[in-house]
């Protein structure tokens, strides 16, 4: 194959664009795709300070790399989830990248901040590891961004992530989730006697236009030493199975993923915008984060605080699970 730009030897093919690229032109293509996404969805402005959630994996390091190259003030944030030596190796990858680029990286650990690791949380609550992990990451990313003074949180969600989430939400008709699936989730503030109090930072996903295979190719071509191994707790993960199914379809019909996701954003997302279920958004009684209260007499405690409270209570009582957490059959 030849590069579509310079006709030199190609190293990456992007079948949904009916194109192939040499290394330098693929890197330029990726940077262009991300710049276009930031502009089209009005994600942030040149003067905004960006807080980039990095895991040590290809997607988060790739988006951080592209934002730095595009000239943005982008600070990394690594959350140590306490998943044995895997977390150690992923942290090493994030720190090594930050050192190489001379970029600032904020590091926190779930154990220090909240008193448990992801494997402990799973055992204490009986939740599937990925479920507790996702809940805690979303909460802590937002909390850390607010505490560190950032108004924009960047994540490395790519086209495959978004299509797999959309696929799952449609399979199960999670209409409230469909209403919240977007490349930009706006910030939110609560009014207080001291004025507006920010409770949610703006969340943006600049990689939604690029496929996971492309972020991996980008990382490799840029010499980014990301963690290739899969999280040891991910076995049987539903999101992964959806990705495999969609990739099979993409292989025979290139462009399907892009059509599904951008077609949803253009033609269907607005239909689910008011599918919040009728609850009232109020401040969590324990932490002040937004949560949905179902009726005036109902308790206003967010999912994170409920889960954390239950886990720490059981930990204090010396709870020992009688069996392994439930896992859906692969």
């Amino acid at each position: 194959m030849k590069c579509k730009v310079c006709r030199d030897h190609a190293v990456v093919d992007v079948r949904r664009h009916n194109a192939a690229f040499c290394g330098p032109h693929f890197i330029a293509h990726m940077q262009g795709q991300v710049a276009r996404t930031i502009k089209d969805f009005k994600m942030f402005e040149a003067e905004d300070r960006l807080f980039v959630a990095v895991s040590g994996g290809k997607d988060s390091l790739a988006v951080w790399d592209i934002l730095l190259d595009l000239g943005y003030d982008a600070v990394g944030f690594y959350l140590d989830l306490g998943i044995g030596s895997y977390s150690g190796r992923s942290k090493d990858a994030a720190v090594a990248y930050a050192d190489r680029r001379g970029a600032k990286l904020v590091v926190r650990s779930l154990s220090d901040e909240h008193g448990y690791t992801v494997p402990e949380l799973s055992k204490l609550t009986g939740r599937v590891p990925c479920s507790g992990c996702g809940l805690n990451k979303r909460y802590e990313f937002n909390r850390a961004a607010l505490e560190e003074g950032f108004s924009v949180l960047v994540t490395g969600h790519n086209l495959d992530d978004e299509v797999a989430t959309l696929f799952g939400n449609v399979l199960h008709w999670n209409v409230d989730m469909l209403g919240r699936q977007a490349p930009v989730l706006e910030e939110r503030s609560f009014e207080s006697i001291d004025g507006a109090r920010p409770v949610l930072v703006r969340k943006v996903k600049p990689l939604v236009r690029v496929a996971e295979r492309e972020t991996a190719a980008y990382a490799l071509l840029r010499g980014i030493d990301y963690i290739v191994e899969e999280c040891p707790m991910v076995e049987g993960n539903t999101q992964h199975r959806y990705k495999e199914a969609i990739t099979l379809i993409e292989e025979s019909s290139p462009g399907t993923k892009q059509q599904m996701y951008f077609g949803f954003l253009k033609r269907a997302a607005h239909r689910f915008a008011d599918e919040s279920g009728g609850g009232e958004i109020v401040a969590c009684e324990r932490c002040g984060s937004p949560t949905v209260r179902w009726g005036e007499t109902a308790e206003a405690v967010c999912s994170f605080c409920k889960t954390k409270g239950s886990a720490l209570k059981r930990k204090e009582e010396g709870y020992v699970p009688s069996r392994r957490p439930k896992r859906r059959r692969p």
Partner: protein
Amino acid sequence: MKVKLRNPDRVVDVTGPATVAGLLAELSIVPEAVLVIRDSTLLTRDESLRETDELEVRPVLSGGAVG
């Protein structure tokens, strides 16, 4: 040719395929789900292979929690 596979890491010997597409078909791997690497260089699916090649087939689909 020697082919390194991931998750878990292992090396398999493969004889016969003349191209990347042929190799992936032989291994029953969907090309859209992997990168194929030779000497730190990415290979497109039409690239020719030699019996002496040492390759890595690196998966690109990650799972897990949606942050």
